[in-house]
């Protein structure tokens, strides 16, 4: 394993770890969401005994998109690793 291959594996590992940490920080949802419910209950709503929630556009990364991104990173890593291996043989 040459220096470039080591750097490639390190970057891939960091990218995968970054995705997992980001997914976990976003609530570890199974499915990616594009909207979230925000509470907008006013004082008058409270007097009337009702609550008011609205959908607000927000991207929440789910396990589905995370898994796809990780698979893409792994495929790219394998391809680039083979290219770097061949270059080493040629040199």
């Amino acid at each position, binding site marked *: 394993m040459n220096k470039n291959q080591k750097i490639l594996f390190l970057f891939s590992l960091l990218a995968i770890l970054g995705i997992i940490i980001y997914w976990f920080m976003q609530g570890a949802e199974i499915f990616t969401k594009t909207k979230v419910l925000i509470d907008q209950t006013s004082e*008058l709503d409270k007097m009337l005994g009702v*609550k008011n929630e609205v959908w607000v556009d927000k991207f929440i990364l789910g396990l589905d998109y995370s898994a796809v991104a990780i698979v893409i990173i792994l495929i790219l890593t394998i391809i680039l690793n083979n290219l770097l291996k061949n270059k080493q043989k040629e040199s």
Partner: protein
Amino acid sequence: MKIIQISFFLLAFSLTTFAQGFKVETSGEKTFNFTDKGKRNQASFFSTTPLEDITGLTNDINGKVSFNVNDIKSLKGELSVSTASIKTGIDLRDEHLRDADWLDAAKYPNIKFTITEVKDVKRLADNRLQIKFSGDFTLKGVTKKITGEATLTYLVESEQTKQRAPGDLLGVQAKFKVNLFDFGVKNKVIGQKVAEVVEVSVNMVGSSAI
């Protein structure tokens, strides 16, 4: 003569003892319209399964209820929500929800609820009542009797209530459970992710002046 006197007494006794309603500065028959141009009224369903929790919500509620302010058991009315307006937070899932296999929004554009009976009235405050209700719930063309609980809050028109709508306001927070299987909703793809019984919550404010 004595029979008439006793009958009159019994009638007056039953009216004062059993008629339960709001103790507010208004009386008589009132009709409340729940069509809100500001789209702040909402009906939602909550489904919980081991795989995930789903909340579906719509702000497209229409309908009216009428009742005697002093006798909430006289309440009658019909409410409906637009099937296509239900959002779950995932666009693709919303499309599935509207599909023929699921709610079939194209064929059944509205979900309706007709209130037929109010019982077990409990006064929480002069302007707030807790009730149990039952009625005919129509989903995907199938009508079944459903029972639930609600809290009703009556606010007489004031400068503060005018911020929301003109006229007296009726706040309704209601909950009831719906067994989707009873209404022919049994999609195999989504069905595994959605509970068979979902809890429906309604938070809405009606105005007597619209």
